């Protein structure tokens, strides 16, 4: 029982982190039709910038400065890069972000080196918030939940209560109509792209010391964020939210379940004696194939419901 509650809480923390990354990507993907491959790379940049800035002026200023820098970077990418290739079609845009991944990956290694950074939780948040069935719940995870909940609220207010939010929502579901009504859709694109990168940067700041800040972190996070966006559905932030929490739960629960398919068959009196690929698959504990589950889920949902969980259009 306690393991369920602890995993539930950890899954929530991880799911909210995923949502912070995925919400920006969903907005970008839904409006511009571009799957931004470099989104996780921006997340990585956010973490590295936070490391550098927090060494200079402390963690809490970095929490604000690093996402803004990421947002500016995103705006630059949109204005000088994506907008130019826009006329060559979606394929060119997709490939453009694909090329950015290589450049960002290597540039980060060039600037900060290949080794993991010593980006640690700030001392003021480095204590145990409460003890939970004998397990300590770090205050930093509580802080992460607080930041992501605040982000969620701010995003909701921005989208529902402001004029810009209204235009964004209109462009989200009916991009052609919004531009036909005279809204400057390219500027909205830039705002959304920069905003999405800002959120990714924020996720990097609070995720960089939750996980490790190292050159491989973009590759580790990228596919999962894609899964979340596609699973949640195009044009739906709610779907994206559900998918994030779901994936967060799956990832954290899978690592603690140590049963295999064979264990389920044992009560029926079935055992396997020899050793080949089939028995290996049957005897593999869930904990070791947990990383596979999100991809299996994505493939399955795309096969039977290509618009995703709550999507409004086909991907």
């Amino acid at each position, binding site marked *: 029982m306690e393991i369920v509650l602890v995993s539930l809480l950890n899954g929530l923390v991880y799911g909210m982190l995923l949502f912070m990354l995925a919400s920006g990507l969903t907005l970008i993907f839904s409006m511009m039709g571009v799957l931004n491959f470099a989104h996780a790379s921006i997340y990585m940049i956010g973490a590295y910038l936070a490391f550098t800035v927090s060494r200079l002026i402390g963690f809490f200023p970095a929490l604000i400065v690093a996402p803004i820098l990421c947002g500016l970077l995103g705006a630059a990418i949109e204005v000088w890069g994506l907008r130019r290739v826009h006329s060559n079609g979606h394929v060119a845009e997709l490939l*453009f972000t694909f090329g*950015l991944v290589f*450049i960002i990956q290597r540039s980060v290694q060039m600037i900060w080196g290949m080794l993991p950074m010593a980006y640690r939780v700030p001392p003021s948040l480095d204590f145990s918030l409460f003890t939970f069935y004998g397990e300590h719940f770090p205050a930093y995870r509580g802080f992460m939940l607080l930041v992501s909940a605040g982000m969620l609220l701010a995003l909701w207010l921005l989208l529902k209560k402001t004029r810009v939010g209204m235009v964004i929502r209109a462009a989200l579901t009916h991009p052609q109509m919004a531009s036909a009504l005279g809204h400057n859709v390219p500027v909205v694109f830039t705002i959304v792209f920069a905003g999405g990168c800002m959120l990714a940067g924020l996720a990097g700041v609070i995720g960089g010391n939750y996980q490790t800040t190292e050159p491989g972190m973009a590759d580790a996070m990228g596919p999962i964020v894609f899964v979340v966006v596609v699973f949640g559905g195009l044009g739906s932030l709610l779907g994206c939210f559900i998918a994030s929490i779901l994936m967060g739960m799956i990832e954290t629960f899978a690592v603690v379940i140590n049963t295999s398919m064979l264990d389920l068959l044992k009560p029926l009196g079935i055992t396997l004696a020899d050793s080949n690929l089939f028995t290996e698959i049957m005897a593999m504990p869930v904990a070791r194939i947990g990383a596979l589950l999100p991809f299996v889920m994505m493939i399955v949902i795309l096969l039977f419901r290509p618009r995703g969980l709550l999507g409004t259009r086909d991907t």
Partner: protein
Amino acid sequence: MSGRRPTQSVIWIAALLAAMSMPWLFYNYHTGRHSGFVLSMLSQMGMMSILALSYNMLLGQAGLFSFCHATFFGIGGYATIHFLNMAGSGGLPAPMELIPVLSGFSGLGLAVVFGYMATKQRATAFAMITLGIGELMTTAALSFHHFFGGEGGVNANRMIGHSLFGLKYASAIQVYYLILAWVVLATAAMFFLTQTPLGRMANATRDNFERAQFMGYDPRMVRFLQFALSGFFAGIGGGLYAITYEIVTFDALAAPLSANALLMAYIGGSAVFGGPLLGAVLITLLQSGVSLLSNSWLVYVGVLFITMVMFAPNGIMGLVQAHRPVARAGLLGQLALPYLRVMLPGLLMVLGFVGLVELTSFLTIGAAQGKTLVLFGNSIDVHALSPWIISMVLLLGGGSWFRVEARAFHLVWERLMGEVAPARALA
């Protein structure tokens, strides 16, 4: 049209002759040995050519974005290791020369299964399914030991003692010619496929999915067949990989290789049949050549790729093709001077950029490896200010000069195109 065919065959035959004679250009007559580096690079080019060409069956010919192409390459490789082990122990009476056929069928088998799933959907959904398949197979290769051998991979000995020509394949040069023979066969087969009704229909579903459907074809079936066949050829490439290296690890089916296939096909030019081959040769050259000299070759590849996406979306072959009408009108000479004028500032700009990248790289990665930057025999202090300023001036100065020259070049190009266009309309 009639004047084009012979020149094309001449180019293909010249390329084949060059590939055949290349190992002998680097033959060391003192020691009587071939250069191991050149041979392994040429072999790598061969495998990558098959990978890139088979990838282009999807990207260029069918307009499909697959992110799991290395899966079929890898599975061909893994299966081949097992075939080699079986053949070595006498369990499989297949000669070495025909083992790549079996690798191809392994790729085909998996491509049939995954292709059935993926081609149910179109566009982004298709791309995402293939992305999922690729990640799925990579994770599977790392966790299952019986077939994939886990992180260590599986290995075999290629001297199985069966050969149609009595060869032992102990030396790399024999393996290289085996690879070359298979590259020629596979390329010819893939070219033949583009001429068949299937190849033509693949083009049609790429250009207009609905219209192909209206005409009574099942576009999904066409795409499925195309996907499966491209898996077959990728499997052959993987088989050659296994034969060359005698070990296959998860690298052979992981995402970076799929990305490489995409880069090679796109940079070479996916609209022309031979484009991916050119891309494969170039990228492999960059990979093995530049990676020896520089830590940061991925940055160069990335920048090259982005430049191509922004300014030459049809790849290198597309650029070459754009010159065809000018060449036919006999006006190519008029472009020589403008090209020279663009080239000079372009070179300065590239020099400045490379300088900045290398300086940054040596500041961190190089320092960690204890290397120093050496240029023309002088070691350069990366902490001094002057190399940074020189590079920056080169980049910015060259860049702004380049912009001016590029504008002038554009004017000349437009004028030439204007002169050529009526001729084109008449022809």
